[in-house]
């Protein structure tokens, strides 16, 4: 191979998205006739998943297949590239902002300033909240003790009256079992099922609405700039195929999982349009607060809001 790309993802090789990532690598190798060789590293095996971006920017890896939300400590703007929270309803709307809403150009400025090039997103879909208590609507979130991932999510749920508990992911399973926490926000129903969340708790929101992370592919900018134009096009096209393939396969997988876990006694809650709007209102208040944290965050929040208005998601 003329070019070797070492890419790390936080996902496991065994998971659906892990397999999709491998498909991406195979596609690139095939389309380039072997001129590009991709070495995939799964489950953060080279560096901790959250540090993949830095490792790629520093040239130990070449590519980062995690998500922008891990980088909010650098600039709060990454929140609006990684997980907008209570924003778009489908992966397709979220991709549309990137490709047709001026998102790519704004995101690229931010990525470039850290020595990285954003290639694209691959969004699995809406995540689900899992709980040992029923979650029929926003009122049930009052005093709901849950393990929340760090960042804006904690603030939104605190605003809604929930009691977010900061806890290492390694303790979540024991904590659910001993009832220290009522629930957790881990991932979508399919991923949650595979790591055994529904062996422990029997309530979940579905279809989800609160969080839809955009996993990304970002490549070290020097490495990217070195690629000849035809290979760049191959990587970009393969990435768009991954986006399509990933969202579609998760659409199917999540539907199947939902049917399965219902049979196993899990109750699913499909929040009403009104309930979703209530959540979105709280989320939007936080978007604006986070938008004030940096000029880049402001630009992205405004861009999302105006795009959502254009496509009729917001009034």
């Amino acid at each position: 191979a003329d070019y070797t790309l070492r890419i790390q993802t936080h996902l496991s090789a065994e998971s659906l998205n892990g397999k999709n990532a491998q498909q991406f690598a195979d596609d690139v190798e095939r389309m380039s006739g072997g001129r590009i060789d991709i070495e995939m590293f799964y489950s953060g095996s080279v560096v901790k998943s959250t540090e993949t971006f830095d490792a790629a920017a520093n040239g130990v890896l070449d590519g980062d297949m995690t998500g922008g939300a891990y980088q909010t400590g650098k600039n709060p703007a990454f929140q609006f590239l990684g997980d907008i929270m209570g924003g778009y309803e489908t992966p397709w709307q979220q991709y549309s902002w990137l490709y047709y809403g001026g998102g790519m150009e704004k995101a690229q400025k931010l990525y470039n300033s850290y020595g990285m090039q954003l290639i694209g997103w691959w969004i699995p879909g809406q995540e689900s909240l899992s709980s040992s208590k029923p979650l029929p609507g926003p009122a049930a979130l009052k005093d709901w003790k849950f393990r929340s991932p760090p960042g804006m999510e904690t603030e939104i749920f605190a605003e809604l009256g929930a009691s977010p508990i900061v806890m290492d992911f390694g303790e979540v399973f024991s904590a659910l079992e001993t009832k220290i926490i009522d629930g957790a926000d881990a991932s979508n129903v399919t991923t949650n099922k595979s790591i055994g969340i529904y062996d422990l708790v029997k309530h979940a929101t579905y279809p989800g609405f609160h969080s839809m992370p955009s996993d990304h592919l970002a490549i070290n900018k020097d490495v990217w700039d070195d690629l000849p134009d035809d290979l760049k096009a191959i990587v970009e096209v393969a990435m768009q195929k991954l986006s399509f393939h990933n969202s579609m396969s998760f659409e199917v997988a999540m539907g199947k999982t939902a049917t399965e876990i219902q049979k196993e006694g899990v109750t699913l809650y499909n929040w009403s349009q009104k309930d979703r709007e209530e959540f979105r209102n709280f989320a939007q208040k936080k978007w604006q607060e986070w938008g004030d944290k940096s000029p880049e965050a402001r630009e992205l929040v405004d861009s999302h809001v105006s795009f959502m208005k254009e496509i009729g998601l917001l009034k």
Partner: protein
Amino acid sequence: MPELTTSGQIWVGGIALGLVLWFVFVSPRLVPMLKMTMHGVGDDDRKFSFVDIVTLYMASVLMFVVAMIVSIMFYEVVMRYVFEAPTLWVEELSRWLGGVIFLMGGLYAMQQRAHIRVVIVYDMVSRNAQRVLDVFGTICIVTFCYAVVSGYGKTALKKFETWELYGSAWNPPIPAVMKPLICIVCAWMAVQAISNLIMDWSKPKVIHDPADDL
């Protein structure tokens, strides 16, 4: 000096002030105890270099970090279980403090010659051969430390200058502090290793005799 954000200046200033006060008023009383080796054995006429003293002063602060972790974890349990008001900061602060002792505890262990090693060959050879092995070991240590500092220094400095935060709700400057700390600790580890080599050079051959313990 790197330019710092305001919040960075407050953190750095506050911690520096606390350390200076501690070094002046508390450390001198703790250092004699910290000099003692693991099992209270060790020669009383042991000499301490300036490097040793610096490390021991650091240790006089670090030894209390575990007590702090215990205290804040207890506070969190009480707040969460009794008052149903969990904090956002305890988990992250304990993680942070833990990282500090994991790293810097290694310096104290180095000063105390407490790092795990296999001495079966070392004990068999003559004192001069031991000196050769000591030099070889020190070269390995210094090489490792140099590689860490040279490979990570640039990133670490950038994290410090931009005062990069952890990205959570409490949002402490963990990357901004811990990444530079890794480089500082490794640099000092090399210094301590060289100091150990010099201080131990003229030591007579010590044989680990089980009878000593009885």
